[in-house]
C-alpha cells in the first residue's frame, strides 16, 4: 500500500514536470514570463509615441495641449523649442548632474522645471505629472542615439 502511494506520487510529479516542460520551457517555467507578441510591441510603441507627440506639442508651445493638461509653461509667449530646436542643447544624456543654474544636484525634470519657471516665466509643473513625463519623453526621444554621459558638465 505504502509502496503504491510512493509510486503514484512520484509518477504524478514526473508527469507534472513533463507537462510544464512541454508547454512553457524550463526557464520560462521558472521566470513566469510570456513572450511578447508583435501586437503588444506595436501597442507599447503607440503609447510611447503618443507621449512623444504630446511632449513635442508642449515643447513647441501648443496652447491647446497646455490647456488640456492644465499647465502654463510660459507667460512670455516663448516656447522651449525657441532655445532648443530639435531638442538641442538640452543634454538629457548628461543628467543627473550638478546643475549650476539650480545650484544643486539635479535630474532632467528639475532642469525642465527651472527652465519653465525662470527663462520662460511659466508656472512650475508637477514633477511626476503627465505634462512632465511627456516633456521628458519628447526630449529623450529627440536625443536618442546620443551617448550616455551622466555627470558631464
Amino acid at each position, binding site marked *: 500500500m505504502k509502496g503504491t502511494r510512493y509510486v503514484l506520487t512520484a509518477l504524478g510529479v514526473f508527469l507534472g514536470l513533463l507537462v510544464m516542460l512541454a508547454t512553457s520551457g524550463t526557464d520560462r517555467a521558472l521566470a513566469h514570463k510570456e513572450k511578447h507578441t508583435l501586437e503588444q510591441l506595436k501597442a507599447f510603441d503607440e503609447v510611447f*509615441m503618443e507621449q*512623444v*507627440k504630446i511632449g*513635442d*506639442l508642449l*515643447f*513647441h*508651445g*501648443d*496652447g*491647446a*495641449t497646455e490647456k488640456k493638461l492644465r499647465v502654463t509653461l510660459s507667460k*512670455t*509667449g*516663448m*516656447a522651449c*523649442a*525657441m*532655445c*532648443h*530646436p*530639435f*531638442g*538641442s*542643447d538640452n*543634454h538629457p*544624456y548628461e543628467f543627473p548632474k550638478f546643475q549650476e*543654474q539650480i545650484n544643486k544636484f539635479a535630474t532632467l525634470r528639475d532642469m525642465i522645471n527651472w*527652465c519653465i519657471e*525662470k*527663462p520662460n516665466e511659466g508656472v512650475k509643473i508637477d514633477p511626476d505629472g503627465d505634462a512632465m513625463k511627456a516633456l521628458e519623453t519628447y526630449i529623450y*526621444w*529627440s*536625443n*536618442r*542615439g*546620443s*551617448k550616455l*554621459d551622466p555627470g*558631464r*558638465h
Partner: protein
Amino acid sequence: MDDHDRLELAREKAMRAWWRKARSCSEVKRTRREMDEELRKPGERPDSSLAITRRIFLHKSLLAGAAAGAATYGWFPLVNTLDLAFGAETFKFAWVSDNHLYPKNVNTRFVDKATRAVKEVQAMSPPADFLIHGGDLAQLGDPVELDLGNNILKEAKIRKVYIPGEHDWYLDMGAKWQQLFGPPNWTFDHKGVRFVGLDTVSRGPDYWTAKKMTAKERMGHMATLDGSVAGAWAGVGRDQLEWLNRTLSNWPKGNPIVIFSHNPLYEYYPPWNFWVRDWREVHEVLKPYTNVTNVHGHTHQALYNEIGKMRSIGMLATSWTWPYAPEGVPALTKCLVRVDPGDHFDGVGWSRLTMTAAEKIENEYVMWRKKDILAEAPWDSGCGDNMNQVLSPRIADREWPYYGSYK
C-alpha cells in the same frame, strides 16, 4: 604620475578626440569642399587684402589693456578683424537684427534689448553712416509688432536700410513690412563700397494654400525654426539672382562688395534654414568678384566662414541665442561659450562694423555681459559641447491639422 598630470593627460586626450571628430568627414563638409574647389582654383585664395589677422577672436580687453571702464559697464566687445583694401575713407555702420518683438503686453524683455541696442547705435561716436536692420524685427509678423519695432528704430536718427526676415513676412506676405520699410532688396554705393541688400525670405514654396491654412497658421509654421511644415523656404530666387548679376556687372571685380542677407549665403544647416537653397547659384554669380563680404542674421550666433573668395560673418540677435547646429558649423568659426539660460542678456547683442582707410574692416560684436565669450575648451563651447549629441526632427506638426506651430 600624480593626479594633476593624470588630469592634464585626460584633458589633452579629450581635446584631441574632439578635434578628430570636428575634422571628420560629413556630407556638408564634402559639399563645401567640392564647391570651394570649384570656386577657388589651385593657388587662388581670397584677395590678399582680405587677410584674417591674428587679432581675430582675441578679446579686445587684452589688446587694449583698458578693461576697467568696460568692466564697469558690463560691456566686452569682441573684435573680428578683416583686412579690406579699397582705399576709401574710414566709416562705420551698425547692424541690428533678430529682435523678435512681441507686443509689450506679452513680453517686454525683447523690447528692452532692442531698445538698448538702438540707443547704443545712436550713441556711437563718431556716428555710424547708416544702420542696417537685418530682419526678424517682429516675432509673428503682427502689424503691432512691426509698428513697435519701427518706433524703436526711429530712435536711431541716422540713415537706415532694411532687409526682411521670415518672421516679418509671412502673416501678410510682406504687406506691412514693405509699407514701413520699402522694397526688400536694393543696392547703393557708399564711399567706394557697393552695398547690396538681398531678400532671402519671401520666395518660400507655398505650403499653406493646399492645406487651407489661415494667415496666422501660415505665420506660425514659418516662425517655428525646427518645424517640418514650412520646408526649405530660404532662397534668393532666379529673378533676384539675375538682378544681382546685373547689379554687380558694372562693378570692378576687385572692388569691395558687402552683401546683407537674413540667411547665410552658404549651406550651414538646412533643417533650420541656416542656408539659402540656391547658394550654389549665388556663388556662380559672385565667382568673378574677389572682394565680397556677406553679413547675415537668422542664426543668432557668432559665425565666420569662407567659401570660394567670399567671406561670411554671422551677426548676433538682440533677442536670444540659437544653439550651434549639430553639424555644419564652419571650421573657421570660433564658437561662443555656452549661454547662461538664466540670463537673457547673455549671448545677444548687435554689431558695429568699421571700414577703415588703413585697409581694415572690423566687426565688433557688442555684447552685454562681462565675461570671456569665446570658448577655448570643448566643454565650454557651444559647438564642442554638442559633439555627443544626436538629434531628431520633430513629428507633431506632421499630423493633420498640423498642430504645434506657434500661435
